């Protein structure tokens, strides 16, 4: 085995070690450890990505001395490593972008815990992306649930954040519970927890028709449980408060990364545990498709009514998550590809928007209301530009990242026949218009010459890391927008060897 092939495993262990280390360090030292670790992991995963893309294959990495039906495993392929590279990179940039706010919003005694939580959150996301064992998936879902709630809660004396955390925790635990019940039923009827033997067994069951009812229920449980956690529209009521009341970096992490890790897990379960044949036979994809379309429209409609910049961005996340589920719901390889592209696009865009929103709040006396943000983009020109780039990307203007999704998703829906094609196309058009309807006025307002009089607006003095973070984010946005064919190639290769 090549040394490179060990890298993803090293990354998991590094994050675990980093998590406990940050717990005993001072705030500044834990910040250094966390950022350094994320950069290191980005580099290691990028090397693994290069390796898997060159070989074009995926491989199984044993976690211990025992092979498939007995020991734990992780599985590494182009899709997994691409996500595994994107996540720590976005995490680093988001943390850098929100660093000033972290040190302001979080109590001094608890700042090191913030980085502990971030490290453990990253290990859980990485493990969800890489795992080849469904129960390992559940263990890291637990870590992910607790860590993401802690991120919302970590705000000094914020009652709103506490309430939002409680709601988030309840909904998230409901999702975990359904997921766990699903695993138990599957174990009962297959006798395996590793993904490969499980899928063989399920395929046998599907052909023989034994246990058809429990199998159908399980598909439903997985779909509902994980879409609850990834904020698919009718289950997304918890998202706006949780994502809006947290500190800027947390909002970016939760919107940009956390909900995505569950989507990848769902995809993994569909492809690698249940098998697409079984999933298609239950029609659950149609339900996800309809909900995804609903999310694209209703998320935007809610965002349109919002007078609070962070809540608007949070509702926009609901709408953007809808694109991913609509892509998955098409049930074709192109559709899944579009969903995966959207995962990356949204991951590089939304944290930037949240960071910029944090910048506006700094120059507007901490207010999030649009009425107080008049001219905030002029006071903080860099955040203004970044917000504009993000807004254009979310609308789907060519050159920007968001256009890649629209292009691939449109292509995918044209390739399908029947009602899904019509529904998807009209939803894309409508949602683009709706996105423009709330993002463009927001940008116009931010660059308004008449400043809000009652706010003691100050000129921004952005720190070096903030400038760096937003610049790299913008560059990434253009990169994804201009070179989306590169991502498409990697993802196609990844999806080919995924199942």
């Amino acid at each position: 085995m090549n040394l490179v092939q060990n890298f993803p495993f090293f990354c998991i262990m590094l994050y675990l070690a980093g998590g406990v280390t940050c717990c005993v360090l001072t705030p500044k030292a834990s910040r250094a450890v966390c950022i350094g670790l994320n950069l290191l992991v980005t580099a290691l995963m990028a090397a693994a990505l290069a390796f898997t893309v060159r070989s074009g294959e995926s491989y199984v990495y044993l976690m211990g001395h025992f092979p498939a039906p007995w020991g734990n495993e992780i599985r590494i392929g182009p899709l997994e490593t691409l996500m595994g590279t994107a996540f720590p990179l976005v995490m680093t940039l988001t943390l850098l972008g929100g660093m000033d706010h972290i040190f302001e919003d979080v109590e001094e005694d608890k700042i090191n815990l913030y980085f502990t939580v971030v490290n453990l959150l990253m290990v859980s996301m990485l493990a969800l992306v890489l795992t080849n064992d469904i129960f390992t998936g559940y263990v890291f879902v637990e870590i992910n649930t607790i860590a993401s709630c802690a991120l919302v809660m970590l705000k000094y004396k914020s009652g709103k954040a506490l309430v939002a955390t409680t709601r988030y925790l309840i909904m998230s635990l409901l999702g975990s519970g359904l997921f766990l019940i699903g695993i138990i039923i599957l174990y009962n009827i297959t006798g395996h927890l590793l993904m490969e033997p499980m899928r063989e067994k399920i395929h046998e069951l599907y052909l023989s028709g034994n246990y058809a009812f429990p199998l159908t229920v399980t598909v439903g449980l997985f779909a509902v449980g994980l879409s609850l956690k990834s904020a698919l529209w009718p289950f997304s009521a918890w998202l706006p408060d949780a994502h809006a009341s947290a500190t800027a970096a947390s909002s970016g992490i939760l919107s940009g990364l956390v909900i995505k890790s569950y989507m990848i897990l769902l995809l993994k379960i569909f492809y690698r545990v249940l098998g697409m044949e079984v999933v298609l036979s239950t029609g659950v994809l149609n339900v996800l498709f309809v909900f995804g379309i609903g999310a694209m429209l209703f998320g935007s409609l809610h965002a349109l009514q919002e007078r609070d910049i962070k809540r608007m961005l949070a509702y926009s996340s609901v709408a953007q998550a809808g694109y991913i589920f609509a892509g998955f719901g098409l049930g074709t390889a192109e559709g899944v590809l579009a969903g995966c592209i959207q995962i990356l696009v949204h991951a590089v865009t939304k944290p930037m928007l949240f960071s910029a929103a944090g910048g506006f709040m700094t120059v507007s006396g901490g207010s999030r209301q649009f009425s107080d943000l008049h001219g905030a983009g002029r006071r903080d020109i860099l955040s203004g530009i970044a917000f504009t780039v993000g807004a254009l990307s979310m609308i789907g203007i060519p050159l920007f990242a968001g256009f890649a999704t629209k292009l691939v998703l449109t292509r995918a829906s044209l390739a399908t026949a029947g009602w899904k094609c019509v529904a998807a196309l009209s939803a894309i058009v409508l949602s683009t218009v709706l996105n423009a309807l709330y993002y463009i006025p927001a940008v116009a307002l931010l660059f308004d010459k008449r400043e809000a009089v009652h706010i003691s607006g100050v000129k921004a003095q952005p720190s070096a890391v903030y400038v760096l973070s937003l610049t790299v984010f913008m560059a990434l946005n253009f990169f994804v927008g201009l070179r989306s064919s590169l991502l498409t190639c990697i993802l196609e290769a990844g999806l080919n060897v995924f199942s």
Partner: protein
Amino acid sequence: MKQPSRNVARFVNWVEGEEVFPVPEEAERNQKPRKKKAPVKAKPASPEKEKRIFALVYDGISVVVCLTVILTLLVTVSWLPRFGGQDNPAENEVYIRYLEGELEEAGAINAVAGMILDYRAFDTLGESNVLFIAVCSVIILLRADRNRKTGALNIPELENRRALQPDDSIFRGSAALLVPIGILFGIYVILNGHLSAGGGFSGGAIIGASLILYANACGPEKFERAFTFRTYQWISFFALMTYTLLKTYSFYTGANHLESHIPLGTPGAILSSGLILPLNICVGLVVACTMYAFYSLFSKGGFGNGQ
């Protein structure tokens, strides 16, 4: 910043442990105050009535949804194979190797220990980190804040609580008798985890319970002379770090098909079964600290802050 609405304030007080007095006219739901009200058009129904109808419909729907889910799951259970049946799908090659090959491969007489700490050690590593992050979250939520201006800890009732500690000699006497036995028994369960039923999780829980008993009987001050928040942090750090490092070695050798140089020893001896014994000790430490940390954070006043 907007003043949080009354309900939010009450909730926060409740979390912080203050008593919640019933508020007389507690009708308003936690409304979003920022939402601008559209100019009120002539509404046919009064808002009160509308709210009642909404609540009724909402409750009705939730009952229907819950009943449907319960019914579906019950029907599903009736379809599942009978518990403990001879030809269940779960009766396959997996458990046979766990039970029969375990002694040779992992070297532990207690097959469960071999299963969770060797065959499926990655899951258990994750699980101990679940405990760790759970404590971290509780610390974040409940540990006393520092006043931003003065730097003093905001523990208004700490002194009162400690003054309320009953001076109960029967309780203290029996605790003095039970605590050493409890701790010793916990250590025995941990060290024997690979030989008999038990292991890190159960032994740690026993030690944790003994620590809680001691802290209750003798008051937290005495306890915190030896065990402060820093101690807790360092113990967790060392236990989890050792765990992670040991497992990194074992996973690395396993995945690369290298020979692991850890001797399995003679099954049945106390120093046997490779890494299982040190791992059990690590898990035991983490669990014991976690139990005590939960207790001291949830009882008001939190951890001793001797730093």
